[in-house]
């Protein structure tokens, strides 16, 4: 099993937290593989079809266009830029640790900067121009339904979702937390290296001070050992990093699964076709009828106003 955290002596000979151990990376890679294999096994064991479900579209096509816009061009550019920077970040972070040496640091922090810019764009864009709650909503009943389905073959399939299905939303929330952790710590780490924007500083005096208190003599006591703030930052970044290995692996796995191909196409072409729309989504929750915005049913997603106008981007 080994130790997941690395400790080192600080210059005063005190053992301080240093970062996560290399073993954690191997663990993450292992988990990623296990997840994929596990999912495959689970999927097969439940006898689900490897192919995309098709829907009966008779009688329900009124007002539904042939192509339904799922992701606008700006959204897609955001997604792919973010994805590319994330992959670059992961590759530059972990491949050198696997033994292939190259000058990774500059690429890594530049990719990180790109990631931050895309996320800032995404946050502004999603708040101002997208339906923020289509992604951010959470419904307990829906969650219970999903877990039942996951665990029991007898449970009924979950209801069809709105624009973003439950697992997508959960994944999104998870990646928000993990990425933010990686980003905040990444920025703190970048402060310690030479970039064109600032002089490097090996220490976090503010962090050090913030966690110092007074000892029983009323003198400043160093409650966190000197230099250990660095270790915390590295640990959080490291944990976030290895978590991202698993999450990104899972993401890619689902993206390329044949039964979920319509998501991939949606993200590549920007649209899905009417059949896919009707097969996988609840038109009540994700309305694409011309010009109309419908009331969101309880727990459902609100229609995205930007996609409600049928457009073809590509």
């Amino acid at each position: 099993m080994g130790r997941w955290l690395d400790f080192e002596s600080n210059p005063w000979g005190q053992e301080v937290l240093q970062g996560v151990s290399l073993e954690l990376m191997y663990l993450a890679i292992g988990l990623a593989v296990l997840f994929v294999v596990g999912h495959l096994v689970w999927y097969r064991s439940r006898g689900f079809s490897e192919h995309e479900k098709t829907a009966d579209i008779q009688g329900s096509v009124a007002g539904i266009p042939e192509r339904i816009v799922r992701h606008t061009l700006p959204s897609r550019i955001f997604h792919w830029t973010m994805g590319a920077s994330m992959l670059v970040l992961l590759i530059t972070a972990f491949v050198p640790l696997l033994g292939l040496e190259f000058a990774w640091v500059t690429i890594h922090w530049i990719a990180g900067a790109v990631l931050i810019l895309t996320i800032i764009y995404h946050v502004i864009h999603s708040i101002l121009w997208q339906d923020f709650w289509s992604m951010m909503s959470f419904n307990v009943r829906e969650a219970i339904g999903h877990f039942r389905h996951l665990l029991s073959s007898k449970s009924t399939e979950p209801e069809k979702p709105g624009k973003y299905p439950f697992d997508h939303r959960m994944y999104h929330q998870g990646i928000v937390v993990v990425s933010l952790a990686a980003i905040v710590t990444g920025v703190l780490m970048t402060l310690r290296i030479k970039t064109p924007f600032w002089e490097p500083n090996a220490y976090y005096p503010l962090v050090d001070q913030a966690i110092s208190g007074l000892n029983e003599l009323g003198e400043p006591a160093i409650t966190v050992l000197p230099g250990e703030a660095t270790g915390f930052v590295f640990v959080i970044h490291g944990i976030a990093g290895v978590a991202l290995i698993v999450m990104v692996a899972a993401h890619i796995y689902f993206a390329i699964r044949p039964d979920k191909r319509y998501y991939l196409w949606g993200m590549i072409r920007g649209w899905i076709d009417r059949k896919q729309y009707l097969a996988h989504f609840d038109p009540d929750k994700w309305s694409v009828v011309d010009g109309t915005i419908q009331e969101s049913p309880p727990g459902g997603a609100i229609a995205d106003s930007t996609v409600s106008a049928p457009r073809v981007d590509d």
Partner: protein
Amino acid sequence: MAIIRDMIPAFELFQPTTVEDALALMAEHGEGGWVLAGGLDSYDWFKDRIKRPEAVIDLGGIDELKGIIDGQDGLEIGAMTTLTEIVRHERVRSEYILLADAAEHVATPQIRNQGTLGGNISQDTRCWYYRSGWACYRAGGNTCYAAAPQAMNREHAITGTSRCVAVNPSDTAPALVALDAKMTVRGRRSSNVYDAEDFFIGPATDITRMTVLEPGDLLTQIDIPSEWANAHFYYEKVRDRGSWDFQLVSVAAAFKTSGNTIDDARIAVNGVAPFPVRLDAVERLVKGAAVDEALAIEAGEIAIQGSRPLKHNEYKQPMMSNLVRRAVRSVA
């Protein structure tokens, strides 16, 4: 664990007499093995008890690694040739005085009598944070202690840094880059020849090493091609003391000239980066140019483009610039 210095921890000593045996021993001991050339860098590590190899492989008994051979194309210098031998070697002095000059600037006579060319170019950095055994990036940790606003980084790098800001301490390294030397590196199963400038690597590539040498690799030979024999050379090293001191900045340059026109040039600077820096831009500038003060000044200015000082080593920019200027000026 309390720290104690100046006692060499126990190790097993192996004294192979052939390169093959040395390579076998190195392979056998892997990370636990330590290759000893002249030993002057190694003993510091041992005495500080920071490096504790289980097996030390002393190359001193391998005759094939010693001596200078007049090769077909220039000189073939065994990695275990002492610096004194290089300083005194007739052909080095007559055709490649740049190398003799550089070797003579190493530390002290006693060290040159024992230190080897291979050891001199493979030695580790002298960053005092690193050498104090602190868990810095280069030592596998997560901090560059020299890159803090208050850190003592007068001797550190102004260019070529990546997290680590230590400098390469070798006096002969820039001379070998300027001479376009080729390094033969032997592993157990392979043998590679590197250009001098590729032999030295920066922290961007591998933050724990100064050269391409990995455990199991042995630098066996340094070839000096005749291409630059009898060129016009310039070597200068600025240091705090006249002996036993590492460079603040040093420059090694080779110029092929006709009159005061530079036909070709190779210029390298050390003490400014984690590796000897070859100044391609300056070389391009001076190639084909007639040397005058304006060219020298421009060369000096171009040399430091892109460099960025730390808090306490801004002086290295003008020092480097001036040394490059002097090197170019020396042609006229």
